[in-house]
């Protein structure tokens, strides 16, 4: 049976990808951000997930206005990085995990989630930047990836509650997969930022920190902020933090914080990073985890 080994929340700011790609991670502007990532990199190196389910949004890259799936789950054998106008990011091709993907798709749909099944898709910075955050610049990504693309561009995105429930259903689905896989869920996006309008540049660190507190200890409360409140407090693009809640739902109600980091700014965004394990798992002696 597959095992849910933990979750990561991280912003997916494109500028972070650019900093990695152009060797600027040690520039004074970026060093604090990348220093803050180290503990997450250590965690993922230690826990070595076989598959990461990356919950992200597409930014008018692979999807366009013709068709807007609320939840699109990738079932492909691989995903090419999308050209977002600067040429595709110089990162490895993303290798899929079609058996587990199809198992998720089938389980989730029978569990009353109205998933869109994506057999061919490209992935943009929303997915590849979190991989760079966790893995740096390897020759090939050290794990297989299942993209779960959430609409947060076209109003309305799914509610926080719906995202939390989807995470719970993903947990059930992973644990019913008849394969010996270690699976992590990566929630991406946010935290507070607004790219558009006269409020462009909005950051609300107070709201973010309070929301992160709730996220860890009272996920139902973190999920209960409605869209208007998120738009108001976290900014029109900060609303994408609902995607973290899919990760949170996949973990048990009681979690242990392995790492928490928050930094303003990363480009126009409040950068947040959180690594969680189920409390039950975290309290196991380290020897019980793979070295």
């Amino acid at each position, binding site marked *: 049976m597959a095992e849910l080994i933990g979750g990561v929340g991280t912003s997916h700011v494109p500028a972070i990808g650019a900093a990695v790609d152009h060797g600027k991670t040690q520039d004074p502007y970026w060093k604090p951000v990348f220093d803050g990532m180290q503990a997450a990199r250590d965690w993922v190196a230690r826990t070595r997930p076989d598959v990461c389910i990356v919950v992200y949004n597409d*930014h*008018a890259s692979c999807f*366009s*206005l013709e068709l807007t799936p609320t939840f699109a789950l990738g079932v492909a054998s691989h995903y090419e990085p999308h*050209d*977002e*106008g*600067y040429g595709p990011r110089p990162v490895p091709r993303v290798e899929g995990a079609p058996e587990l993907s199809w198992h998720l798709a089938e389980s989730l749909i029978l569990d009353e989630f109205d998933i869109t099944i994506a057999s061919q898709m490209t992935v943009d910075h929303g997915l590849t930047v979190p991989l760079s955050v966790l893995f740096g610049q390897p020759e090939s990504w050290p794990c297989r990836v299942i993209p779960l693309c959430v609409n947060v*561009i*076209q*109003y*309305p995105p799914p509610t926080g509650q719906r995202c939390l429930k989807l995470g719970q259903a993903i947990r059930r689905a992973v644990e019913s997969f008849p394969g010996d896989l270690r699976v992590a869920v990566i929630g991406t996006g946010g935290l*507070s*930022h*607004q*790219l*558009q*309008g*006269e*409020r*462009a*540049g*909005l*950051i*609300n*660190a107070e*709201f973010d920190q309070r929301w992160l507190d709730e996220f860890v200890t009272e996920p139902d409360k973190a999920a209960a902020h409605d*869209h*208007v409140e998120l*738009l*108001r*407090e976290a*900014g*029109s*693009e900060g609303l994408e933090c609902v995607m973290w809640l899919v990760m949170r739902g996949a973990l048990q109600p009681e979690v242990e914080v392995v790492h928490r980091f928050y930094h*303003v*700014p990363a*480009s*126009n965004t*409040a950068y947040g990073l959180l690594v969680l394990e189920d409390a039950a798992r975290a309290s196991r002696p380290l020897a019980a985890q793979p070295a």
Partner: protein
Amino acid sequence: MNPTPRDYHDIPGTYVFDGAHQRKGYWLNMFCKSLDLAANRERFRAAPADYLAGFPMTDAQRDAVLLRDWLGLLRLGGNIYYTFKLAIFDGLSMQHVGAAMSGTGMTVDDFRQMMVSGGRPAEGMRSRRENREACHG
């Protein structure tokens, strides 16, 4: 469609891309999306007005494109992830566009400085109604 008032219309300086907005800006955004292809970028660079004529947009939308009126584009139904494709076409950064949309004559360096100093504070930017009440109250 006359958009029905929504709670989020109370948030200042924020253009929520809901159904009404999407319908208004559909072809404006699809024009921006078309710039994903290098061949289209060349055609647009060579003859901007001709290229725009190929999309069923309003004149106001076409003017806002030609003038790079970043705020106007949002008001006319643009979505930032689409209009930003036009900025990429121009070689501009999101911070450039952010400064321009602020509508306060902010330069890109001002904008960058604002972000480094913690970003634009939410205080006074939460609610048009609250702001009015604070003014008149």
